[in-house]
């Protein structure tokens, strides 16, 4: 019994303290101040939004506009795309061309990636047809380092039956870090349904799309952490907690008060005859008045 009572008290306390805590927290963190000179303080995380990753280059290559034409020190490079049919060995299938752009900080980065496919030879066409019939894998690979192709290749595969539409629609999603290709996700441009039906393309040529993805910076820990730090540094420039309404602030006092008043009033109305004459409206006697009706109730 006592445990439950203490539990009740504890829960009440906990909820009150929690709600107070939440209030405090939200109250402190509500600054809408614009900290323009955060660079000056060397606070990290407040960098300007990097728009590049928001608009990935996503156009069919040959018609692409050229937003990077202003860059002066860029170098054209190219590397080969190789493919394999099922268990066959790899053979050249096309060429990637890209430009290397050096940034003022950090190493060079790849931009303007495009692919030009070699036309399929007769033998390759037959091999591809065989893949389609057997529902086997079509595999491509590119060198891991585009500047100096080493022994390491990035491999990616797809079930051949996913590719044919009107033409062979393919899409390269290339994840790169500097001049290193990290991963290539090779696949069809659209969805690939399951079970995969056997379907031959109308035209035996590749329709290629490329998409280059570079690293994305993690959004910094809650931005207000910096604001908090700035606040602690002394320049507490009137970041006032918003005014709470009277009710929101004092409800926990008002409700019991209201209950007491209501109780008193009802009791007083029930027993007007028992009202003693000597009760005036001072503070001290009011409490007596509150207790009085209870005593009366017990007497009844």
């Amino acid at each position, binding site marked *: 019994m006592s445990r439950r009572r203490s539990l009740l008290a504890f829960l009440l306390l906990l909820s009150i303290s929690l709600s107070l805590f939440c209030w405090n927290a939200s109250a402190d963190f509500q600054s809408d101040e614009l900290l323009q000179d955060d660079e000056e303080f060397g606070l990290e995380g407040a960098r300007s939004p990097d728009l590049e990753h928001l608009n990935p280059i996503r156009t069919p290559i040959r018609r692409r506009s050229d937003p990077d034409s202003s860059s002066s020190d860029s170098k054209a490079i190219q590397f080969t795309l190789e493919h394999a049919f099922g268990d066959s060995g790899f053979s050249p299938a096309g060429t990637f061309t890209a430009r290397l752009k050096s940034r003022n900080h950090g190493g060079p980065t790849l931009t303007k990636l495009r692919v030009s496919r070699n036309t399929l030879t007769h033998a390759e066409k037959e091999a591809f047809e065989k893949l389609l019939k057997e529902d086997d894998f079509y595999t491509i690979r590119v060198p891991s380092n585009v500047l100096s192709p080493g022994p390491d290749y990035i491999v990616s595969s797809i079930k051949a039956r996913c590719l044919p539409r009107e033409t062979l629609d393919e899409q390269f999603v290339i994840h790169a870090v500097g001049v290193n290709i990290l991963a290539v996700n090779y696949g069809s441009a659209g969805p690939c349904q*399951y079970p995969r039906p056997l379907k031959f393309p109308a035209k035996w040529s590749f329709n290629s799309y490329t998409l280059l993805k570079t690293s994305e910076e993690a959004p910094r820990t809650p931005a207000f952490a910096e604001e908090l730090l700035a606040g602690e540094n002394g320049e507490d420039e009137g970041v006032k907690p918003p005014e709470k309404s009277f009710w929101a602030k004092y409800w926990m006092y008002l409700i019991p008060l209201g209950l007491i008043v209501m109780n008193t009033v009802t009791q007083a109305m029930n027993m007007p005859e028992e009202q003693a004459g000597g009760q005036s409206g001072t503070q001290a006697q009011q409490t007596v008045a509150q207790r009085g009706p209870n005593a009366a109730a017990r007497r009844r």
Partner: protein
Amino acid sequence: MAVRASLFFLFLLLCSLLAAALYEDQVGIADWHQKYIGKTKQAVFHTQKAGRKRVVVATEENVIASLDLRSGDIYWRHVLGKNDPVDQIGITLGKYVVTLSSEGSVLRAWNLPDGQMSWETSLEVLKPSKSLLYVPANAGVEKDNLILVYGGGCLHAISSVDGEVAWKKEFSLEGFNVQGISQPLGGSIIYIVGFTSNSQVVVNKVNAKTGELLNHNSVAYPRGLSGEALQVSSDLLVALDAARSSLVTINFQASDISFHHMAISNLVQKSFVTVSLLPLNVNGMFAAKVDSTVVIARVKDTGELKVTEKINDPSCVSDAILLTEGQEAFAMVQHADNRIHLSIRVNNDIATEILKESISVDPQRGHAQKIFINNYVRTDRSHGFRALIVMEDHSLLLVQQGAIVWSREDGLASIVDSTVSELPVEKVGVSVAKVEENLLEWLKGHMLKLKGTLMLASAEDVATIQGMRLKNSEKNKMTRDHNGFRKLVIVLTKAGKVLALHTGDGRIIWSVLLPSLRESDVCDSPIALNIYQWHVPHHHAMDENPSLLIVGKCGQSSDAPGVLSVVDSYTGKELNSIMLAHSIAQVIPLPFTDSNEQRLHLIIDRNSYGHLYPRTPDSINIFLREMSSIYWYSVDAEKSMIRGHALKGKCDLDSADEYCFSSKELWSIIFPSESEKIATIATRKMNEVVHTQAKVNVDHDVMYKYISKNMVFAATVSPKASGEIGSATPEEASLVAYLIDAVTGRILHRVTHQGAQGPIHAVVSENWVVYHYFNLRAHRYEMSVIEIYDQSRAVNKDVWKLILGKHNLTSPITSYSRPEVVVKTQTYFFTHSVKAVAVTATAKGITSKQVLIGTIGDQVLALDKRFLDPRRTLNPSQAEKEEGIIPLTDTLPIIPQSYSTHSHQVEGLRDIVTIPTKLESTTLVFSYGVDLFFTRIAPSRTYDSLTEDFSYALLLITIIALVAAIIVTWILSEKKELREKWR
């Protein structure tokens, strides 16, 4: 009044359902905690002066503990941590235990009675080498004796009183390795003898008070030395020569170093294969193990050797202890069919055994591996001996007067893997529960409980009530219960022992030291790897026992052949074991079972061939059907590479093995080695159940979770920042988190955290990942969450499409179509560093999740996933608040009540395992390290059951009182009405 009272009761009842934390007296009802120390490496018994009922041990789990010799209980214990292995242990001044750890770089003294650390000295170590601790034996209490420590090319003399370094001497000689330190009696001179890499014997004479080098002498031994040597007495060293065919006695205290050489074949008078020296520490004697024979030989002052005893097939020999002046005793253990024969001999009469005991030992403990002896004075004033024996399964026994006084199952300190097995179904007619004890007992118990409830119980009564609750037979039954709380936790230890623990109280139901994982001629140095469920009967659950698959391998190398063993979960009997012809790189339990309900397992070897088990025609039929949709990935941390594989067809090897399949590489991801290094890989648990596929937003919009069992979380750090925290600057450090689809190798999401570094701990569940790392810029630990949602299913939100059937909800999902995914992330600061992370698992996945964090303080903290919700905002709107979104804070709160280990510490915490129960609200949590801790937690409280201590009587009384009140008031009102009418 009655109405009021009953209302009050009702209110209390409502409140009682909200119990969240635990009361002190509830500890131990649903949880248990077991303390272990690990396999004993060294032991020192207390000297006569310091009270002789304790032994101090250092273990391979880097624990220093003081054990009670009467009961085996732990008096005190210190876990030094993974990076601080204890090398040497000694007792000085009769009141301190001195430990040398971390390759001779840290020397600590612990107070013997209570384990308080008195002093700690860190010593300079130039290069890693064998470390040596020399505590002078005649350490008088009043004299300030110096402890000599050799480690890493430096000799330190340290005051045993306060740990002050008295002097230090560097030995800069290339390849110098100290073999012995000796200080002749009353000596102001210390001899340091060692070998160099080119077989020179070097003797340094050092002044004991100042460390001044008095004399340096070195002589080359022409035949070469193997580096293995034993110090036999204060002036003699016995070494093996380079060919390991003869023994060399080196006398180093004379003015010039003299050698005496003797072929081992002359010593044993037969040819031999292997030879090794055994430390014996008996003055003027040594032991050598030649093949399986132990030869005990005496070294004469002239350096000649004389064999005094040859013993066949002993298990081990103890160090010697001093009985009386000039009389030393040592023990020897021999093993013969489940009995160990202990014999104690003295040095001056080696042939006679002054004590011979034979003790029967549980065969599941294996052979004796180490023995430490201690003597005491018997009631008849003769010498008695007790022996501390370390067994093959890492357990520790104390043997005295021919009986095992106590045993500790310390193999449980080094659990490698664990799994869970259901208990047998309760059979009709077989009553497991005993009939209630006699009525008086029953009444007494209830009286006590009543007293406890009314707060009239004394402290003793409270203890009795507590004991009764703990004894409560319900939870310790050997049958399945309705809620699924009773199970067997089956653990595999480093020693190759499998133990089944009952979840009710943690007692060991059975244990088996797997014969296939023991050292033998076919398999030396076996390693236990994993444990899997092999056979879980559903159709014949009443009369078939489930079984387990234990996977191990022979030897350290990656091409070592594997070992499989199948063990019955109820009895612990080994049903079958196979020595594999191939290596084991990966074991994949497949989601298929054959007609005998044996689970199919695909074992991938080092050459990427897949081998199917069990090898039955039935399993191969099932497997061939599903072969085209089996994919797996492999991680090559050295090359920073992740590869995806699929099966191609039959093996192209020469042997026509139809259970062997070749594979092909489908995809690869290569992280640039100059900027990224794989730090952590995490995947979802295969048996996890997801209940809701979608999440409803505040604006009544639906987000579909991206739920794929093939999602892999990988985290890389920059190579410079792969070391300790602080080894790299924030500019050099970065952490990249990846979400990868393991079938196609598609990178679903990739995010860089600048200025962050490991250690990284991650947990993946449903559609989210939580990972913990260190932020160098903020100088704090952080936890990030990534939630991933599938956009391609968002079209299903259109009601019209649903009605017209134009939705894709029922279409099969293939990894080859690329769903559009969106990702929500958030990062929070977190105060603790973390040892392990896990997530709760429930039967249906309805209950909200908690992330279980093993903190650096070896406790398990249950943190609501709600705190790690990426949708938390600074000012949640009313609707968001109603949904339960917590206002955004920069730090995750640590609520002291949410430690699921409450006041216990799971020392050396390594892993946390969660097991769902049949009751949806509850998860079983088993955390292990050096200690074991088991409890059950309810992340959203036990909403689907009443608590165990729910008072049904109170409910009944309340109902009766209410009914009575209704009747009374009804009668009263009737009477009143009658009066009104008569008026």
